[in-house]
């Protein structure tokens, strides 16, 4: 991250120069992706290293430009490229049909194999996706591997689990939360070095290629980079880079040979047809079946079921988390109003710690941090994380509402002979509840939206599903609108219900 910051500063410093002479090549990638792609150099975190870094240096050198790094989250690289946040994007970016439609994409520079990683004792029984019926298989969201898992959910009955990064799937595999991880052989090889007790299945589930992405209007630059990459294949420069990063093998040699042969054919065709654009057809993106159709309506129709399913997750999770938050909140508020000094101190500490730290951190701690002690299922961790967090906020609402009921009413009730329990149940509680209703509704709407955070513990809810959708079609416009409409469909009736309830009580008491 520090590298990214430095790069941004450098970028700002170089911006003026870039405008004059175009001497800068802004390149986007996700340094969180790590080695061997892009990572902060452990010996000097202000510098980046990785094979993608070296390829960019090579390209920039040939273009006569200076590479400047722009940090972009992996899932946002496509949108960022289209917006023009950077000139070229490299970060182990897969070649897909959708990417080719939305962006200018170079020739592939590396071929990888999607491989299954399993716990070593399972190596004999989980050889392919077909052996994993009913089992949880994890991968990185928005990748070819994710598409393969979604397809395998239907054909082989596996349970796909999405992650935002490529580290946690392997840790969850080792701990038994997953039975397999499907990711490319580069990531798999790196992960089995890092996490003990795992084994990679040799058979490839699919193959894919890494490409450089550019904004569509940058096609001329793309053509120049194509030439540079092919030259680097021909003269062995690329081989040198891949060997250095330990990812060169015979299949890569075969891939390059085939690419070079195709390139020559293509160049001849191109010359004979006077520069006609050769698109994805020349480089079939994925050997698997095409998942996407072209028109927006059919896109919506094909994604709507999964979005509706994700909405259901969102609403069930939010309702359960709110129920938990309300129950705990009432307990905490009562304890803080009626409890003894130590109880009050303890509850105050809980409320302050919970409100003073990000819910994201709490979710991480619950799911990953505690996993060596108690291995919570993802949905339970999400429910607890949101419920425990919101309980702190709810308790403050209830405490404020309880204290807003005039003291003289409580004293009058006591002198009439009501017990403390009766005072709370018959006098204080009902009035406090009415006062609390509006802020509670407000919180529930906020909770609906905060539930999008639980994707970090692998629960696919509405926002996550939308992000997957958007990554697949390389556009946020349509998925974003659909997602917003679904959230509004959930939150607006809620706000209306609360207004009606408030109105009814007001009418009853006036």
């Amino acid at each position, binding site marked *: 991250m520090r590298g990214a910051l430095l790069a941004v500063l450098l970028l700002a410093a170089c911006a003026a120069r870039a405008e004059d002479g175009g001497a800068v090549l802004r390149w986007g990638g996700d340094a969180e992706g790590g080695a061997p792609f892009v990572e902060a150099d452990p010996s000097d975190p202000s510098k980046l290293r990785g094979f993608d870094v070296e390829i960019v240096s090579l390209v920039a050198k040939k273009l006569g430009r200076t590479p400047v790094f722009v940090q972009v989250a992996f899932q946002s690289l496509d949108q960022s490229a289209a917006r023009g946040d950077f000139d070229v994007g490299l970060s182990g970016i897969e070649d897909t049909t959708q990417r080719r439609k939305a962006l200018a994409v170079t020739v592939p520079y590396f071929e990888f194999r999607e491989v299954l990683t399993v716990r070593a004792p399972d190596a004999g029984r989980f050889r392919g996706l077909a052996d994993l019926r009913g089992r949880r298989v994890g991968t990185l969201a928005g990748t070819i591997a994710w598409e393969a898992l979604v397809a395998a959910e239907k054909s082989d009955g596996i349970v796909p689990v999405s992650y935002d990064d490529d580290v946690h799937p392997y840790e969850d595999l080792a701990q038994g939360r997953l039975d397999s991880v499907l990711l490319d052989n580069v990531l798999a090889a790196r992960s089995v070095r890092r996490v003990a007790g795992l084994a990679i299945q040799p058979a490839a589930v699919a193959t894919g290629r890494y490409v450089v992405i550019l904004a569509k209007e940058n096609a001329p630059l793309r053509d120049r980079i194509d030439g540079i990459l092919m030259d680097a294949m021909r003269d062995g420069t690329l081989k040198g880079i891949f060997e250095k990063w330990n990812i060169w093998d015979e299949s890569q040699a075969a891939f390059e040979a085939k690419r070079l042969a195709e390139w020559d054919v293509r160049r001849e065709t191109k010359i004979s047809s006077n520069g006609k654009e050769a698109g994805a057809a020349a480089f079939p993106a994925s050997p698997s079946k095409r998942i996407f159709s072209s028109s927006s309506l059919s896109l919506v129709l094909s994604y709507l079921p999964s979005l509706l399913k994700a909405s259901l997750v969102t609403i069930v999770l939010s309702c359960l988390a709110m129920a938990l938050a309300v129950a705990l909140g009432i307990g905490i508020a009562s304890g803080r109003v009626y409890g003894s000094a130590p109880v009050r101190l303890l509850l105050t500490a809980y409320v302050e710690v919970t409100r003073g730290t990000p819910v994201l951190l709490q979710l991480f701690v619950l799911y990953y941090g505690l996993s060596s002690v108690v291995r919570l299922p993802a949905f339970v961790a999400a429910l607890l994380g949101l419920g425990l967090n919101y309980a702190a906020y709810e308790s403050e609402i209830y405490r404020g509402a309880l204290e807003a009921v005039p003291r003289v009413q409580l004293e009058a009730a006591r*002198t009439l002979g009501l017990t403390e329990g009766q005072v709370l149940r018959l*006098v204080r509680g009902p009035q406090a509840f009415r006062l609390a209703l509006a802020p509670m509704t*407000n919180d529930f709407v906020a909770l609906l939206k905060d539930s999008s955070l639980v994707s970090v513990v692998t629960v696919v809810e509405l926002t996550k599903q939308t992000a997957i959708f958007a990554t697949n079609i390389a556009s946020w416009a349509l998925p974003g609108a659909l997602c917003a409409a679904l959230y509004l469909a959930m939150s607006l009736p809620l706000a209306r219900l609360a207004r009606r309830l408030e109105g009814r009580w007001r009418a009853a008491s006036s």
Partner: protein
Amino acid sequence: MSAPFLAIGGLRLSRGSAAVLNGVTLSVLRGELVALMGLSGGGKTTVLRAVVGLEGFDAGSIVVDTVALSPGPPPSGGPLRALRARVGMVFQSHGLFEHLSVLDNVTLAPLHVGRLARDAAEARALALLAGLGVDRHARAFPRELSGGEAQRVAIARTLAMEPPLLLMDEPTASLDPARRNELGRTLVKLVAEAGRTLVVATHDADLVRDIATRVVVLAEGAVVEEGDPRDVLVRPKHEATRFLLQTKDHGPEPAAPEVRPAAPRLPLGKAPNA
């Protein structure tokens, strides 16, 4: 002469370092209507709160009928229940339950403490409300009542539990003169016909003259003078009483503004998009 129904002896109470009561001694016989007079801050309200068990005291004793309270925190458990069965209190800012109708305000304690059937509780409540002239507001909510109406509903609510001893704090504070006279007659009737014992803390010398069987003057946390209102009010012996009567033209002190925020100040929870 029978034993007093309420006997307060040497009552001392302080808040922090400030002494509020400096040894109050006072006896009230069954069927008396005693007026407790004194300037604001003289300790009238505190005496009533201690008698009804809302406040503990540092030294002295309080005996209500057969229930004896001792120094320390407010009573709890059995003694508290016994006390509550004998003493009722009407607060200056009446403290009606705002989420309940007038009828429900009056029936709440009979239903949940007295375990009366709803029919019986409502019949009793309506009779009390009628007696106080507010039965036509039975279905109304407290916010719709005038100060005087609310005061009478609060009296009905306390009377519904039929306490032998009734304490009232500044009952005329929110009433105009006509209403005040009406309330005075009601209180006299309560004592004369229903056989109750009343202790009324008030500033209102006219009310005291009209209804009280005895007046007790408190100043700086102690009783400085007591006797027949016709003596005490006409020929005050103590300086504090004289001062009190001189300042009576200023009228009763205004009801303390109740802490009742129109728009409750609550933590608004998480701001959306927080």
